[in-house]
């Protein structure tokens, strides 16, 4: 803080403007402003055309007005809590399954050889196409949605872990064993720190996929969550609520992704 203050006092407003954080905020604000302007224009066009007048609530101003309404009704909070729980559980399962299998793939050649083709094959199946099967297998809707998120998220985590391990210098294992490391130490003191960057990068990809999958997955069956809120808003013709929920999805997704970016940068030990 003090740095910013002194530079400003030295008549360094210009210099402050050149600070990277300030510049980034500037770019972001500019980009969002352009988006808002385009949106307002579209809303204006909708209002003034008699044939689209019914959809006027899609505009920027009605949407912004919908936020406090939705918040007071607790709809945003409830939807985020429900979707957040499913997302968290799905990602947790994907991590618990994906990381150990990824380590095996990176460490054990025969395992990698056997599993590569089947995994690549299953990976290419759209997570949503598992929906009917998931509904049959799991007793609850929650269970099937969590399954869909897990199966969407497990592949990036698994393959990133395996790729990270493939880059690990075998000499590190030699050094560790030479100094008396047990397999447990090799795992916790060598493998995990060495690949944490790759694992978190995989989690970021996984989060991206899971965040996309959760909305359509919640269109069916359940009566809570972001997907449900959108479907509900559409059925009750509350288009302002609909767009507000869509914007919420964007904002929260962006926020979650940013958290992972911070974690990834912290876990990186690579130079240059």
């Amino acid at each position, binding site marked *: 803080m003090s740095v910013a203050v002194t530079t400003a006092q030295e008549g360094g407003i210009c210099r402050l403007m050149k600070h990277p954080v300030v510049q980034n905020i500037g770019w972001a604000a500019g980009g969002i402003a352009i988006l808002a302007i385009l949106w307002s224009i579209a809303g204006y066009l909708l209002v003034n055309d008699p044939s689209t007048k019914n959809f006027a609530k899609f505009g920027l101003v009605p949407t912004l007005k919908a936020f406090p309404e939705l918040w007071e009704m607790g709809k945003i909070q409830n939807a985020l809590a429900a979707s957040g729980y499913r997302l968290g559980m799905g990602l947790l399962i994907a991590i618990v399954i994906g990381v150990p299998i990824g380590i095996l793939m990176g460490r054990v050649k025969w395992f990698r050889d056997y599993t590569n083709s089947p995994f690549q094959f299953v990976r290419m199946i759209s997570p949503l196409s598992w929906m009917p099967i998931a509904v049959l297998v799991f007793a609850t809707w929650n269970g099937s949605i969590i399954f869909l998120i897990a199966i969407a998220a497990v592949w990036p985590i698994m393959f990133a872990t395996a790729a990270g391990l493939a880059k690990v210098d075998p000499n590190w294992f030699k050094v560790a064993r030479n*100094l008396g490391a*047990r397999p447990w130490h090799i795992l916790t003191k060598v493998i995990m720190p060495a690949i944490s960057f790759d694992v978190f990068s995989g989690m970021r990809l996984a989060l991206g996929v899971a965040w996309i999958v959760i909305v359509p997955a919640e269109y069916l069956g359940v009566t809570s969550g972001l997907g449900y809120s959108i479907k509900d808003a559409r059925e009750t013709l509350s288009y302002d609520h609909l767009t507000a929920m869509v914007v919420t999805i964007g904002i929260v997704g962006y926020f979650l992704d940013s958290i992972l970016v911070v974690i990834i940068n912290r876990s990186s030990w690579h130079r240059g």
Partner: protein
Amino acid sequence: MAIRGTEIKIQGLTHRYGSRSGVTFNRVDLVSPPGEALAIIGRSGCGKSTLLHILAGVLKPTEGKVLLNGTEITAPSPRWVMMFQAPHLFPWMTVTQNVGVGLSFGRWSKQEIAERVTEAIKLVELQEFATANVQDLSGGQQQRVALARSLVMEPELLLLDEPFSALDAFTRASLQKDVRSIAKRKGFNIVFVTHDIDEAVIMGDRAVIMAGSPGNIVHELDIDLPDPRDRHDDAVQALRTRLMATFQEAANYTKPQSATLAA
């Protein structure tokens, strides 16, 4: 002073890297008494590093065995520790963390680890880099971290593979003396590989020369000099000349098989 050292007995040690590669060395026999500092010198590629890896238990011999006080070495252990030819530090750790990593595998209290690590870092003169990431160190500094990481274990047997080759002459000279005096003080054995005849004479109690393909020990020379040793002393210079002569003789060594074939 308690002797922590160990008698090393190498018996009929033979090694090959795979069925398709040739024999690295054939039926090597060697005994090193407790507390000895043994230098191994020889041309590049004659199997010195391989021999050291077997002594460290990270590589298995094809035939023969290595005994430490009568117990066969079959696996690595913090009791016999090797410093490799390259530092191989953990790049996500600081200097302090790298030096303490071996102790963190054992049952040491945080306090003990901290004390021993500080001492080892002081010895290699890296105090001011203690909290630096090892990627920000020069090659020679990294090599010193690797040395501290091995020394801190206080093993019965310390194996050094060309430990100081990346260092400047001053640092090298001071570390040669330091390592020898620590080993003598604590009483542990050293087996070190070097290309540097001076280093063998300054640090060793005895030098063995490996040569041939497959390699074997073809000569040995006792380095019977008082401590501390200075490379400018006449006695050191005289031994250096003798070792050099022996080494050159070994360079002309032809393996017995080819001699019989030629006959």
